[in-house]
């Protein structure tokens, strides 16, 4: 394995560079996946049947908290990758832990939101609008949930093996995934919640 020490650890071998490239290709597929879910949502948005519409169930305050938590977690994982690049393992782990806690906070609010909807009689079976909404939000939430466990696994590896080309590569790829989830959330925040609240 040829290690190019002029590059950051996560890019230092051919295999690492290919893995990062491959992950970007995967993110391309994820963009298309979420585009199809947005398509379904936009198409069925007005099909509320006898159930509520978006403006009736969306609440701005929890959504703003979710946005703030996810934006901040995207910032802290960016700091984590920066700390990793300057070789500060302690700071890197601290930033990753903060990121995952913020992610948990996001999930807590989202679960509470779903419970509230169901209590108000807005379940996934109520209308086409709610089916599409909950599939879109649920797929994003599932990604965050998966990301949480992925992040924990990476932290365990970094703690036990230290920062080397393998662990740095995994941590960096995880950071790409986490930033991507933030990008998806921004579109949900803008075109599901804010747009739903004004129309």
């Amino acid at each position, binding site marked *: 394995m040829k290690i190019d020490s002029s590059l950051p650890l996560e890019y230092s071998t051919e295999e690492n560079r290919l893995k990062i490239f491959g992950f970007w290709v995967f993110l391309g597929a994820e963009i298309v996946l*979420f585009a199809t879910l947005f*398509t379904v949502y936009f*198409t069925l948005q007005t099909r509320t049947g006898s159930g509520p519409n978006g403006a009736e169930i969306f609440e701005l305050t929890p959504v*703003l908290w979710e946005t703030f938590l996810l934006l901040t977690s995207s*910032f802290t994982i960016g*700091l984590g990758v920066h700390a990793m690049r300057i070789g500060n393992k302690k700071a890197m782990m601290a930033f990753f832990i903060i990121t995952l806690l913020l992610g948990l906070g996001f999930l807590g609010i989202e679960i509470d939101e779903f419970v509230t909807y169901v209590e108000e009689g807005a379940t996934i079976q109520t209308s086409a609008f709610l089916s599409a909404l909950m599939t879109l939000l649920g797929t994003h939430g599932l990604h965050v949930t998966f990301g949480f466990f992925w992040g924990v696994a990476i932290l365990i590896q970094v703690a036990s093996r230290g920062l080397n080309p393998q662990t740095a590569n995994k941590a960096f790829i995880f950071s790409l995934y986490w930033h991507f989830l933030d990008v998806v959330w*921004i579109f949900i925040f803008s075109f599901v919640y804010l747009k739903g*609240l*004004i129309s």
Partner: protein
Amino acid sequence: MKELFPKQHVMGFGFSLLLTVVALAVIKFDMSFNMAFAVLLVTALAQATVQLVLFMHIGESEDKKTLYTTILYSVFVGVVTIIGTLFAMIWGYN
């Protein structure tokens, strides 16, 4: 401590918070739906760009041209899926 907070990241974070506040204008101020939609589109795309460029460093590796092509192509397929479906299923009936 200071070395842990690179200027680029702090600025990117400030910028993304600012964009969120700007997007909120569509709720706080009375504006036409088209105007509100334009504001949301611009702020969301700017947010995505902040993430991709400042946080994900899409342009830092040697195959950045291939990455830009891959991501732009995915976005193209996504946009065609959304616009094409709306065209066939919703707008076509008006």
